[in-house]
Structure formats: structure tokens, C-alpha cells
């Protein structure tokens, strides 16, 4: 009995660990791929070399982040089978096809065109290279679409029936893909990816501005990042609000945990700003509250009644404290992002965007906060779904493989060691690239790290000749 329980906990920890590591990279590469496509397009359009310099600067960082995303994603795709075989058997008929479509429409597209995007500007010419860059960006967005459809279906299942074996049988694919929470979740995640990237790009721009405030590429990227922040953060806050209302409708227990509402409030629930949720005693200790605000946010009405966790059977309650805190971390960081964006806008309006060391330092501090917010958001939504894998229908404890605890423990330890070593190194290389001066295209020297690509500066005709000389055409 204890053995089965510990295998479940270990499998959950393993899933949480590997997916938390994984989500970092897509969150970054979705936004960065689109950023690269924009840079490439603007280079082609304006022939302003700053854009090409920035493209070549960020494409190396993208390659490392994308590589880490790929390898950690392959691990995810097999983990459903190794640790969650019963879930795979039962929910596979519904979510398996969605994940197969992710592979067919997104992974192949990204992988197929990535090589051309990274190595091919000279080989295929500017137009096809732009197409390849666009395809990689498009692929990351399609990928997000399918995987969020899968995740949303697990949160708000629709369009299926169940057979005598307890398998989910697809009945209406339209309802499955476009399940009730999917549009909100997809919007929220894609905007989060864009914001995460904007914060990183802004921080790198700020770093180089602090060193040399005349650095043109640094100015360009810092300015672009500040526009992105001030335009997208309000959209994201609105999207988050709609998502919250949708969650209240379909997964009320999750919202109760997020809000820390152990008790029902028949005439207007307060917003608990801070406190220590005490699930055993079913109360929030040391709560700081604003009366009626929770009802106003969730129901857009001060006196709307709001049910609490007292209406949910104990065994169906999610772990309140984790959800409560992670939600506050996400929202708090969202507000800080808005603040940074507004600060940038004010500095710009005063014509001091490139004369604002305090703003630059703040941007650097906020650089990694997108990742923290994304992780906190996923923790909120995933832990909030517990104790179910398919919300309300399939319990996590009934989803596990017939797996021995030592096997899961061994693989978990292996994953932890390997991930910290491998992804630690990758993060170090990315940070080092970010720390390097932004090199102009034309005088890029040959370095000992391998030949530097001089993409775009060589006239196509010469490239053609060069390849013909070597018998490459």
C-alpha cells in the first residue's frame, strides 16, 4: 500500500520536475521565434543592418534554447507511457491524436526548417530563408495550440463518451479540440511567451545600454521590448481575468484554492491579499482581506455569492497552499511587468528611453521574471486540477503505471542530475552569449569557436560562384 503511494508521489514529482524544466524553453522559444521572424522581415523590408545584427545575435541563443526544448520535450512525450500507462490507456484515444497532430503539424515543420534558418541564408537566398524563419515561428505557435488543447481538455473535458473499460471515446473532435477552457488558456500562454521573451530581450538590451548607451542594436531591442511590454501586459491581464472567470465556471474548486476561500460567502466574498492557508483547519491564517473584491473580480458584482471549499468533498480538494501562493506570485509579477512597461512608456514620452539607467537596471532585474511567472501560472493550473488527471473523471492515483517505486526513484534521480548538468551548462552558454558585445555584421572575425557566418553581406551571385567552384550546386 505504502509502496503504491510512494510510486505515485515519485511519478508526480518526476512529471512536475521534467515538465517545469521543459516549459521554460518553449515559453522562451515561442516568443523568440516570432521575434526573429519580425527581425528578419524588417531587415528584408528596410535593409537597416541593425535588424540583421540583432537576428544573428539572437539566432544563436535561439538555437541553444530550442535544442534544450527539443530534448526535454522528447522526454515528456515518452513519460506518459512510462509513468502514466493507465492514463495513456484510458485517455489515449482522445489526447493521443491531438499530440500526434502536434508532431505532424508543428515538430516536423520546426525541425525541417530550423536547419535552413540556422545554416541556410547563403544557400537558399533571402526570400526562402525568410520563409524558413517564418515556418519555425509558425511551428512553435501551432505546437502551443495543440498542446494547450490537450492540457485544456484534461482540465475541462468535452466531446467524449466512456466505454465499459473506463476509456474515453472521442465523439466530437470539434468539442474536444475547442473545449471550454482552450481559447483562454491558449491566449494566456502565448501572451505569456511573448512577455517572457520581451523581458529577456529588454534585459539584454538594458545590459548593453548600461555599457554603451550609443549601442544602436541595444537601443533597438530595448525599445522593441518596452513597446511589447506596455502593449501586451494589459492584454495579458485582461486575458487572465477572462481565464479566471472561465475557470470559476468549469473548475470552481481550483478558483476556491487560488482565492483561499475555505468558506462559502453568500453575500460578497473578500479578496485575500495575503495569508497562510491552513488546509487542516480549513482557514487562512493571518489573512489580509479587501471586502467584496473577490466577488467583484470573479463575478463583476460586489455582492455576488461565492461558494467555498466547504462545498467540495475533502478527497476532491486540491492542495490549497501551493495554488494560493503560486497564483499570487504570478499576479504580482504581472503587475510588476505592467509597471515596467508604463515606466518605459513614460521615459519614452519624455525622450529619455536611452538615458534611463534606473529603468535599465529595473529591466535587468525583471529579465528572468517571465519564466517565474510562467512556472507559477502552470503550477497554479496544474496543482489546482488535482487530485484528478482528467478533471472530475480520472483520479491521479488511478492513472499510474504498474510501476515500482525504486524504478521511478532511480529515473527521477537520473533526470535531476542530468537536467541540472545539461541545462545548467546550456543556461550558462546562453548567458555568456547575452553578455558578449553585439557584433556588427561586416567585421565579424573568424573566431576559434568555428567560423562566423557572414550572412546577408555576401552578394548572392558571389555565393553562387563560390559554391560552383567547389562543385556544390
Amino acid at each position, binding site marked *: 500500500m505504502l509502496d503504491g503511494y510512494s510510486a505515485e508521489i515519485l511519478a508526480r514529482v518526476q512529471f512536475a520536475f521534467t515538465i517545469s524544466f521543459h516549459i521554460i524553453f518553449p515559453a522562451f522559444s515561442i516568443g523568440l521565434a516570432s521575434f526573429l521572424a519580425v527581425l528578419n522581415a524588417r531587415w528584408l523590408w528596410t535593409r537597416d543592418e541593425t535588424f540583421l545584427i540583432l537576428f544573428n545575435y539572437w539566432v544563436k541563443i535561439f538555437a541553444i534554447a530550442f535544442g*534544450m526544448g527539443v530534448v526535454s520535450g522528447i522526454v515528456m512525450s515518452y513519460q506518459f507511457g*512510462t509513468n502514466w500507462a493507465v492514463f*495513456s490507456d484510458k485517455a489515449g484515444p482522445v489526447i493521443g491524436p491531438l499530440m500526434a497532430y502536434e508532431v505532424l503539424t508543428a515538430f516536423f515543420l520546426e525541425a525541417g526548417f530550423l536547419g535552413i534558418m540556422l545554416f541556410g541564408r547563403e*544557400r537558399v537566398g533571402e526570400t526562402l530563408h525568410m520563409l524558413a524563419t517564418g515556418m519555425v515561428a509558425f511551428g512553435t505557435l501551432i505546437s502551443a495550440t495543440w498542446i494547450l488543447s490537450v492540457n485544456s481538455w484534461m482540465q475541462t473535458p468535452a466531446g467524449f463518451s466512456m466505454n465499459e473499460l473506463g476509456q474515453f471515446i472521442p465523439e466530437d473532435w470539434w468539442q474536444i479540440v475547442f473545449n471550454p477552457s482552450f481559447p483562454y488558456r491558449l491566449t494566456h500562454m502565448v501572451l505569456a511567451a511573448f512577455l517572457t521573451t520581451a523581458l529577456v530581450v529588454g534585459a539584454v538590451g538594458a545590459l548593453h545600454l548600461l555599457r554603451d548607451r550609443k549601442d544602436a542594436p541595444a537601443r533597438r531591442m530595448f525599445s522593441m521590448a518596452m513597446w511589447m511590454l506596455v502593449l501586451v501586459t494589459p492584454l495579458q491581464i485582461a486575458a487572465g481575468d477572462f481565464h479566471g472567470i472561465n475557470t470559476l465556471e468549469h473548475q470552481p474548486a481550483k478558483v476556491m484554492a487560488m482565492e483561499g476561500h475555505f468558506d462559502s460567502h453568500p453575500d460578497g466574498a473578500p479578496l485575500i491579499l495575503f495569508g497562510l492557508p491552513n488546509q487542516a483547519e480549513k482557514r487562512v491564517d493571518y489573512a489580509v482581506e479587501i471586502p467584496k473584491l473577490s466577488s467583484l473580480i470573479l463575478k463583476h458584482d460586489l455582492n455576488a455569492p461565492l461558494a467555498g471549499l466547504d462545498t467540495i468533498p475533502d478527497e476532491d480538494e486540491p492542495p490549497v497552499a501551493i495554488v494560493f501562493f503560486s497564483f499570487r506570485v504570478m499576479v504580482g509579477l504581472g503587475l510588476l511587468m505592467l509597471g515596467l512597461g508604463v515606466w518605459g512608456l513614460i521615459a519614452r514620452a519624455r525622450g529619455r528611453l536611452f538615458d534611463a539607467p534606473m529603468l535599465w537596471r529595473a529591466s535587468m532585474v525583471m529579465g528572468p521574471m517571465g519564466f517565474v511567472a510562467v512556472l507559477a501560472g502552470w503550477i497554479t493550473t496544474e496543482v489546482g486540477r488535482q487530485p484528478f488527471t482528467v478533471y472530475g473523471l480520472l483520479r491521479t492515483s488511478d492513472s499510474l503505471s504498474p510501476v515500482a517505486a525504486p524504478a521511478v526513484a532511480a529515473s527521477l534521480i537520473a533526470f535531476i542530475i542530468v537536467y541540472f548538468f545539461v541545462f545548467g551548462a546550456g543556461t550558462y552558454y546562453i548567458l555568456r552569449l547575452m553578455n558578449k558585445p553585439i557584433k556588427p555584421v561586416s567585421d565579424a572575425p573568424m573566431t*576559434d569557436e568555428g567560423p562566423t557566418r557572414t550572412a546577408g553581406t555576401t552578394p548572392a551571385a558571389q555565393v553562387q560562384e563560390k559554391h560552383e567552384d567547389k562543385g556544390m550546386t
Partner: protein
Amino acid sequence: MLGLELSFIWAGIIAFAVLVYVILDGFDLGVGLLFPLTKDEKERNVMMNSVAPIWDGNETWLVLGGGGLFAVFPLAYAVVMPALYMPIILMLLGLVFRGVAFEYRWRTKRWKGTWDIAFFGGSLLASLCQGIALGALVQGIEVENRAYSGGWWDWLTPFSLLTGLAVTVGYAMLGATWLNMKLEGRIQAHMRRLAWPFGMATVGFMAAVSLWTPFLDSVYFERWFVFPAMAFSFVVPVLVALCVLGLFRGLQQHRDVQPFLCALSLFVLGFIGIGISFYPYIVPHELKIVDAAAPDSSLWFTLVGTMVLIPMILTYTAYAYWVFRGKIDPEEGYH
């Protein structure tokens, strides 16, 4: 009746995805396996650059194989993955090291040697584990009540170790013939020479596995040694012999492309041989293709897109290979 046909179409598609994976990632894993046999860093650079633009696409077929199995044969997926728990996890860890090495080794001078070892070690671990997983599947998996019921070390047998070595040596042969095709100069001649021992070892391992397999199970035996199935099965060894001839003659006559194509064909034939032994099971002698299939609604939904998308994928994959065709320019790269 229609549903029955549908699951067989799907078995064919999954088999196709796995085969494409094996021959594509096979040669780039092989490039990793050959890393320690090089003279210097320059040779390793050019070897890696021969697969750098395409390895990611190659590896995606593994995700399609696994993801496709999950989508259309969820029961087989749910049974096979726990049974092969350790080889699968080790393969994934190997692929992690190998995959990041493609970028990392260009980003550091001091640690370049470490990432070279990671590239080799990851390739070796992934190749061995794939072969072991194959062998474990061929020798059979215990199933009770729609779940794996065997032990945690069932995958580890003399037979699965043999298939592990066979696949690894075969990948090295693929890698050597690929590099013979893509490279020039000393390193090409070196790889051509290396293709001989790896080619011969591959043939030896194929023979050993082929002779052992029929004795693992009476059904396998009938497939290969009882008339009339034997008449069809017999074609396979004949074609194998032709490919072996083409491989070694091509190497002897310093041809670039022929040895690689013959080496790939050997893998295709080996795969067909396994298919002849398996049919109509997906998990040998426990789960038939029909019984492991997802409901028709899942099969149809996935099939419609697959029929449109696979040709598209093959087209742009072929285009990517075309873009990077020809011998490798040692000065090229984006690093």
C-alpha cells in the same frame, strides 16, 4: 470490417514512422558513434556539420513513432512503455546529451572535449537502448488485465543484449557510409575503411539475430521455416545478400552513394524481417493489432490529417536535404 482495415493501415503507418526513424537517426547516431575514431577536432567538426542541419528532423520521427503509438494503439503504448521502462529512460537521457552537444560544443573551448564525449556517449547509450528495447519486444512482454505484468529486469537477456549490439554496430555502419558520401579527403578515406569492419560485423549480427529469433517462439519459427510462408520469407535473405554485395563492392570501387544506400537497404530488410515475424501482433503474442487499436473515431480523425501531412513532411524534409546536398564545406557553419 472497415475498422479492422483501419487499424492495419495504422500499423503500417507506425511501422513506416519507426523505419524512417531508424534509417535517418540511425546514420546520425552513427556519426556520434564514430567520434572517438577520428584524428583531430577538425575532423569531428566536419563530421558533426554533416548532420547538424538535419538531425533534429530525423529525431522527430521517433516522436512520431511514440506519439503515433500513443494516439492509435494506446493499449500497446501503455503496455510496452512500462515493460521497457529502463531502456527507454536511458535512451532518452542519451538523446538529451547527444542533442545538446550539437550546440554546446561550439560554445566552449575548455569543455569541447567533454561535449565530444557526451555526443559519443549519448549516441552509444541511445543506440544500445534502442536495440535492447527491440530485442526485449521481440522476445515478448508479459501482459495481464491490459497492463504489463512482468518484472523490472525482464528486458535484460542475452538476446536483447545481442540485438543492442547489432543495432549499435549497424548504426556505426550507416554513419561510416554516410560520412563516406558527405566528406572528402583523409577523413572520407578513413570512414570508407571503417565501413568494412562495421559492415561485416553488421552482417554477422544480422545472421546471429535471424538464426536466434525463430527459436524464441514457435510462431516465429513457422514464419521462417514452414511452407508456404517460407517461400515469401526466403526473398528477404536473398535481397540481404545482394545488398551486402553492393555495399562492399561500392566501398571497394570508391563509390560515394552506393554503399550508403545499400547499408540503408540492409536496415529496411532487417525491419521487414521483424515485420514478418510480428504480424499480426503489435506486442508479440499478447496483443494483436486489432485489439490494441484506439476506437475508430480516433483512428479516422488522425488518419485524415496524416494522409495529407506525411507527404507534405516528406516533401519539405527532402527539400531540406536537397538544400544541404553535396560534400561538406569544412569552413561552413553558423557558429
